[in-house]
């Protein structure tokens, strides 16, 4: 079995949150789908709520406090991501966006990302397409074709095997395929010297 790292970023605020519920279902489905392809996923969950103060501190001081740095390092080392945000005011939540705002440029380059969101009603579902997808395209990730939206209705008693389940499984399978066919992620050392002084002088 190949070993790969999956990081799930969940930005719900209440505890428990339907955002985390969706995140957990997606990561479980991804682990199952990956298993069928011969890949064992090591899953780490980042609850953005737990890092809310540290994210603000990073914005204000320019460096991440230790616990945020640890989460950022996990994200940087991930072979695939699942990102789930609640819909706030017609977009992703500010806290969700802030987590990505303080990541170093290119941290997420070429990582497959499963986009997901939750809201009270299905009227918000296009947030995935008009807000999350451009953001993750900008971050140079590879957003998967299927993004998953869950509204309160989807958590109703009769829908365990309903349309949400089908979308979760389809998106999870897409994520598993992308992770499986890639080389393991490598993390660039920000302090590594990429050119000698002579090269720097020459390239002026």
């Amino acid at each position, binding site marked *: 079995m190949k070993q790969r790292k999956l990081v799930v970023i969940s930005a719900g605020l209440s505890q428990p949150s339907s955002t985390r519920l969706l995140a957990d279902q997606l990561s479980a489905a991804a682990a199952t789908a990956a298993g069928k392809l011969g890949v064992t996923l090591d899953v780490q969950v980042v609850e953005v709520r737990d890092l809310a103060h540290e994210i603000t501190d990073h*914005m*204000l*001081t320019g460096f991440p*406090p*230790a616990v945020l740095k640890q989460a950022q390092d996990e994200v940087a080392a991930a072979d695939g991501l699942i990102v789930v945000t609640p819909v706030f005011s017609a977009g992703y939540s500010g806290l969700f966006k802030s987590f990505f705002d303080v990541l170093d440029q290119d941290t997420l380059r070429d990582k497959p990302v499963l986009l997901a969101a939750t809201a009270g009603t299905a009227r918000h579902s296009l947030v995935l397409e008009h807000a999350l997808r451009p953001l993750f395209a900008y971050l140079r990730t590879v957003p998967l074709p299927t993004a998953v939206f869950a509204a309160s209705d989807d958590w109703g008693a009769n829908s365990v095997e309903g349309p949400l389940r089908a979308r979760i499984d389809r998106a999870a399978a897409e994520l598993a395929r992308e992770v499986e066919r890639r080389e393991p992620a490598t993390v660039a050392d*920000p302090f590594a*010297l990429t050119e000698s*002084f002579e090269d*720097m*002088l020459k390239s002026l």
Partner: protein
Amino acid sequence: MQFGIFSVSDITTDPTTGKTPTEAERIKNIVTIAKHAEEVGLDVFALGEHHNEPFFSSSPTTTLAYIAARTTTLQLSTATTLITTNDPVKIAEDFAMLQHLADGRVDLTLGRGNTGPVYPWFGKDIRAGIPLAIENYALLHKLWREHTVDWEGKFRTPLQSFTSTPRPLDDVPPFVWHGSIRSPQIAEQAAFYGDGFFANHIFWPASHTQRMVGLYRERYAHYGHGDADQAIVGLGGQVFMRKNSQDAVNEFRPYFDNAPVYGHGPSLEDFTRETPLTVGSPQQVIDRTLEFRDYVGDYQRQLFLMDHAGLPLKTVLEQLDLLGEEVVPVLRKEFAALKPAHVPDAPTHASLVAARTIAKEEVKA
């Protein structure tokens, strides 16, 4: 080892009184602070350069020349001199001039400046920060070492048969430190020339400083200037002290909470844990400062930030008393006892003149 203070020259409202010093007050206070640094036995006073409010220090060599006239032993330096937006010709001239007036008690620390709007005011672009630092310093280095210079580069008008005046005192250029928080290219630049490397060290976790200094030392040896542990390293630091550590925390907290740069962000306790900031008793400052050596090795210069965030002059002078009377004498002794003989001290004008004399005799022999 050299100990001293550095000022970023901010004019900040004292959050406990609501009083903001005038420019005139703050500028005269800086002179008083620098003089007092010498009086309490410190070695170095370094002054920042800024071209935007709330800072006053747009013209550091003017201020430093005045301080030079009012002091006798204090080494005058900068924190930092903008190698990106200043014309290297003017830096060469200004600091050679200062060197003469101050009888050689001058070195400088070069930095890029991180304030985006400042660059275009001087016709530059912050995105070219590193290339500007590389090319401008190459010219500055040449102007101080060659009498007649022909030069053509990307960022300034060409020079034909140009001589920067006055020539450096005794034809020995001021020692240069290169400052950077997180750009490995600047550590490489310092190593290439065999210059000093100064790590800001106050806004970022120690792990960053450790990596940057480690890279600089490794490359210093690579370029043949000496062993890695002979490279010339300076560190910033930030402290606030009272005899009783809880008094220090209580008194400093409002200044910390409202400080420029990190104010309204992390708590004093968080920032103390994450960065080298130390707020407490002189003994705590001694213990913490000695730990710096554990991750950068034996180093040559330790500067403390003491006068920012609206702290009143009286408080700053009291801090200098504590630093000079209780902290630095112990640190001098402890660091000296730990330092192996082959690790050099920070270069001074006298040591550079002596080194050149030896080098000339070796050539003759």
